[in-house]
């Protein structure tokens, strides 16, 4: 019922036991239990990468897994906890049972409720064996003595009992249940995407209560505090991958670039810290599952609103800016030179109803992450200092409405507002 990886591990444990039996006959196998432990730790490290634990539990420039990373939320700032095996300030006194309870139910060993910034609503799907492997890995990293920093939450959110209400509304406990009607790849992909990958944390609209509703899973939304729009993974009009090839999705997830587009913004963080380490099999499994999330074939795109005087003015102003500033990399016809210069024609990310990401890419530029598969990425220059609000609006309008693209015009005011967006 579990993933191929899990089964593989069961097999390796079985082989390990066999070797322990063989010890009676041949003392040469005496290292087997240690090797077994090492392989569980190695698997735990891999799974911890799949869960992207490091991105939140390591502060910039701080010690590995010692926490203290600030997570600004609409409710105040949370500081992540020390998860190194230090007995006093970390999780050195925890047991594997307690770790599993935390992952599965969002409760710490003292019974306290975790803030849902810890994605236990996703991690609840993780199997006991995988939780144990992650725990074994976490106990193997260097212990760091560093007290957790108290959260800085505004009233009334500093009252932990409110979490009970949040849990009632948004948390369903339960391990992943494979769907026997689907392929092994699909089930493995679903397990990773819904569980350790905790993709719904961004790719589902966060409501005013800080919850993401299961019925809206993967439908996209603006990420609070970051001013990046996490596109829908179910709509082909946004980042739905229905008409992407498995290879393009896999390249995108693991190397950060593909023939269809490159990762940027918070997704660059995910690829850099997590997805680049995934195996071929797991990357393909996620691709299969994600492709299947897209509903049906590409829907007809809505007709754009009639060009007003402003949007036609923007368009005519936009073309010369595009030809001068953008065309040398992205091509006069917006075809790009994939994978390093992404195509703009037909690029879903540019035509979404939210223009936030397109405007921010022009303002701030950006590098895709440097990964094993793409160690020296090409970068997009920032134009915030070179172009006025009108020029930014004009060139983004041009890109969103040319070459068959069916996005809507953007205003200089939208461009101006995003100049103040938090960068880092």
């Amino acid at each position: 019922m579990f993933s191929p990886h899990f089964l593989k591990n069961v097999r390796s444990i079985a082989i390990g036991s066999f070797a322990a039996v063989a010890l009676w006959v041949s003392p040469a196998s005496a290292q087997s239990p240690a090797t077994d432990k090492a392989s569980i730790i190695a698997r735990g490290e891999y799974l911890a990468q799949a869960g992207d634990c490091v991105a939140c539990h390591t502060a910039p420039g701080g010690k590995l897994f010692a926490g203290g990373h600030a997570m600004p939320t609409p409710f105040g700032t949370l500081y992540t906890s020390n998860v190194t095996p230090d007995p006093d300030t970390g999780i050195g006194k925890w047991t594997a049972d307690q770790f599993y309870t935390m992952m599965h139910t969002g409760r710490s060993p003292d019974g306290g409720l975790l803030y849902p910034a810890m994605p236990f609503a996703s991690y609840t799907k993780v199997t006991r064996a995988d939780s144990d492997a992650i725990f074994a890995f976490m106990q193997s990293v260097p212990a760091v003595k560093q007290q957790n920093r108290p959260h800085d939450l505004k009233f009334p959110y500093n009252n932990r009992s409110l979490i009970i209400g949040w849990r009632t509304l948004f948390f369903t406990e339960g391990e992943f249940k494979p769907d026997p009607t689907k392929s092994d790849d699909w089930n493995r992909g679903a397990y990773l995407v819904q569980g350790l990958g905790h993709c719904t944390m961004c790719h589902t609209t966060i409501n005013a209560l800080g919850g993401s509703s299961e019925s809206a899973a993967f439908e996209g939304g603006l990420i609070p505090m970051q001013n990046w729009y996490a596109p829908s993974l179910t709509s082909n009009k946004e980042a739905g991958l229905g008409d992407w090839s498995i290879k393009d999705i896999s390249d995108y997830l693991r190397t950060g670039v593909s023939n269809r587009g490159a990762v940027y913004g918070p997704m660059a963080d995910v690829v850099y810290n997590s997805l680049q380490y995934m195996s071929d099999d797991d990357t393909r499994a996620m691709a299969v599952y994600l492709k299947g999330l897209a509903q049906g074939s590409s829907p007809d795109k809505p007709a754009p609103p009639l060009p007003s005087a402003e949007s036609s003015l923007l368009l005519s102003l936009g073309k010369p800016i595009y030809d001068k500033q953008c065309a040398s990399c992205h091509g006069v016809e917006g075809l790009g030179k994939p994978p390093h210069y992404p195509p703009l024609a037909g690029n879903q990310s540019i035509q979404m109803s939210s223009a936030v990401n397109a405007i921010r890419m022009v303002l701030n530029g950006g590098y895709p992450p440097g990964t094993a598969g793409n160690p020296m990425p090409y970068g997009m220059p920032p134009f915030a200092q070179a172009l006025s609000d009108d020029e930014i609006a004009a060139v983004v309008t041009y890109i969103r409405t040319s070459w068959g693209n069916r996005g809507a015009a953007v205003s200089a005011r939208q461009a101006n507002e995003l100049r103040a967006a938090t960068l880092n």
Partner: protein
Amino acid sequence: MAARVLACASCHGDKGQGTNDDYFPRLAGKPAGYLYNQLVAFRDGRRKYPPMNYLLEFLPDPYLKAMADYFASEQPPFPPPATPVVSGAILTRGEMLATKGDPAHDIPACANCHGPSFTGMEPAIPGLLGLRTNYISAQLGAWRYGTRTAAAPDCMQVVAGHLTEDDVKALAAWLSSRPMPSNPAPVPRGSLPMPLPCGSEPN
């Protein structure tokens, strides 16, 4: 490599020569170790400037090293020196601080570490010429207020902490008015005895 660092060019010029904006410094010809240290410091947030912190956030060390090597090896022409807009007395104070220091206030001369002609020292001490008045003064200010830091012991934080506002103004005015020497290369590693320890320039 030039194509890979196009993202740098809009502010620093395609060869790292700088642009018309006062606050975007020349990168070309600075010691590679210095440039690399700055790239790492921006990526890790030890030196704070959000557009740079953002651009470099997910780039691995070897790539940052390649970027540093690229700009260190470029030799575009220098801009003409600035015409000072401050009094002769202020310029004299700037020249004295840069060349002799102010021992009474524990201020070593810039030249002690940055070289007798201010072209820097390999591998990681930058040259001070070809930079604009506002940039120099902003960096000295950033050290004083802690938004720019370097590996411990952070010698420049110590030095900048001893400077007054007037000292900063005088140094920025004098250094930015200096013409380039005929040989703009940094002096060799270890060729200057440094007056205080510096984490970024291991001896």
